[in-house]
């Protein structure tokens, strides 16, 4: 990997492989993402798409290949891992808010203890973020008192509070009731338009069509096809891609 290409890409993955015991979950996955790019990863369940983005912030450990995030190689070095994690926000399918803390505390915890921001400033920033995701009035409630859509928006605000350069979304709308999906997607669209680098695993094809710069189709632990949304939905090349799209569209 030359210096040149590192400079152009904020995420560089080269030949990333991972096994669970005998089972190979990722096969030589290579993908590079430019700053401000929105990449949507689709594929059938068990195709390794979640595993792949979870490798990028080391929630899963890859066993071979290289991952470089914002110039920092992902190795066993704990300092590198913590640095990458603090620059990479992640939004989970199950929200994973901290149920014993208020919404405000959920958002300010990491800035205060990792970024060492003072409390007043962290809270001000948190309120601004809650405003941005449209639920400032929920600041003092506990996660259990919010709807799924609201919880997911809090989770997005919580990630943004760390001022990450990259946001990873792991099926952010899959656990939501249908009427709440839109409010979360709207927040994600706004985020994409603001220039955030995003890597999104989703089944929302509308979102992929409208927002993605590139769509990646994964199956069987490998990347089958990469292209613009237009290419994908009108002119897919591979049989497996066509089959998948025919099943879900």
């Amino acid at each position, binding site marked *: 990997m030359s210096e040149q290409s590192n400079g152009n890409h904020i995420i560089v993955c080269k030949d990333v492989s991972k096994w669970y015991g005998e089972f190979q979950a990722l096969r030589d996955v290579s993908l590079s993402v430019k700053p401000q790019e929105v990449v949507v990863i689709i594929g059938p369940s068990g195709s390794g798409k979640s595993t792949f983005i979870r490798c990028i*912030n080391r929630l899963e450990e890859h066993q071979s290949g290289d991952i470089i995030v914002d110039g920092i190689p992902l190795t066993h070095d704990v300092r590198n891992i*913590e640095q990458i994690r603090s620059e990479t926000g*992640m939004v989970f399918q*199950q929200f*994973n808010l901290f149920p*014993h803390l208020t919404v405000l505390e959920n958002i300010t*915890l*990491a800035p205060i203890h990792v970024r060492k921001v003072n409390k007043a400033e962290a809270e001000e920033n948190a309120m601004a973020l809650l405003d941005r995701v449209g639920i400032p009035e929920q600041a003092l409630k506990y996660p*259990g008192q919010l709807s799924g859509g609201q919880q997911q928006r809090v989770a997005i605000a919580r990630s943004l509070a760390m001022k990450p350069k990259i946001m990873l979304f792991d099926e952010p709308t899959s656990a939501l009731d249908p009427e709440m999906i839109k409010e979360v997607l709207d927040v994600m669209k706004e985020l994409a338009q603001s220039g955030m680098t995003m890597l999104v695993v989703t089944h929302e094809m509308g979102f992929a069509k409208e927002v993605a710069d590139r769509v990646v189709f994964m199956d069987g632990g490998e990347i089958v096809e990469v292209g613009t949304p237009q290419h994908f939905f009108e002119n897919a090349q591979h049989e497996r891609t066509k089959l998948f799209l025919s099943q879900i569209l």
Partner: protein
Amino acid sequence: MTSAVQTATRKALPPPTERYTILGWLQKNLFDGWFNSGLTIVALGLLYALLRPLLNWAVNTARWEVIPANFNLILRGQYTAEQVWRLWLALYLLAFVVGFAWAANTKIIQGELIVLFAVPLLLMLVPFFDGGIRINLLIVEAAGLVGYVVGRVLPQRQSRLGVYALLIYAVVLLFILRGGSGDTGAWAAVPTNLWGGLLLSLLLAVFGIAISFPLGVLLALGRQSKLPAIRMVSVLYIEFIRGVPLISLLFMAQVMLQLFLPDGFPTIDRALRALAAVTLFSAAYTAENVRGGLQSIPRGQYEAADALGLSTFHSMTFIILPQALRAVIPVLVGQFIGLFKDTSLVALVGLFDLLGVARTVLGNPNWLGTHQEVYAFIGLLYWIFSYMMSYTSRRIEARLAVANR
């Protein structure tokens, strides 16, 4: 004026009488129809028949005078009589600190607070207490009030100050009880082998709980550690301690420890040895209970903390442990109640805790045959403190319920 009163009454109508008066309750629950009335009467008759011998004994036969006659012994063992004022001093301070901690924690006046303030006043009604005790109880009450007022004056809620005050109190308490080094004077040393009765039981329990809890949490974390050495040591410790009965640990601490120590090594205090045994024992159980709590935390919580870049220490302190400990409050309190009652085993290795002094009283020829009275009374004391712990635990659970999933 009149209209204001009227609005006030309109807002808070009295509840329907048939549900909230004693007679209404009786009718609804006990005499609702002829069949239920009959059942109630039969049940009352049965209860009376069963309890009559007990009541008869308690009222007519029992020699309750054994309790007042040995009251000092039961409360404080052989603690030097001239130094008893120091126990009172400790109680004044306790009342002050509790009042302060309460007010620092919440400004709302709760029922429990009123009950707490009623305790010294109610104790003043005990018939066999002399004037000195009553005056001291009054000072305790006043100290509690002063502490509460001081806590109220704080500009905002500061639970931490209350916790610090309690921690400082724990240290000061030991200084007050132990005293200086001389044998005479106002601050004469009172060696721990003179401490006894309720005083010793409570000290063993409170310090046992306070020290074994953090130790147990560390062991639980150690058992989950990724470092094999720490994990092994934790597992070995927990499994070893859990594999032996407490009484054997107590005997080891009292009898065998001295054999292992080098010659000329100063003798370790016997009360301290008992405390160490109780604490080490309890820590192993705490560790397993806390581990249960840790395992109940979904993996997503760890992942969310990791993804935010929190260090392991921060993630444990702010995310995992608060939730894990909340989940196991009932179990932990159950275990602490057990620890409190288990302190009675120290009587078997020669310490004079509640059970120990009870046996002393019964060994006194003047009080031969008063087993029932004495054991009933110390049983009551155990029950009162155990129930307080259990009640507190339920209140804490209720208070934390909002933040639960």
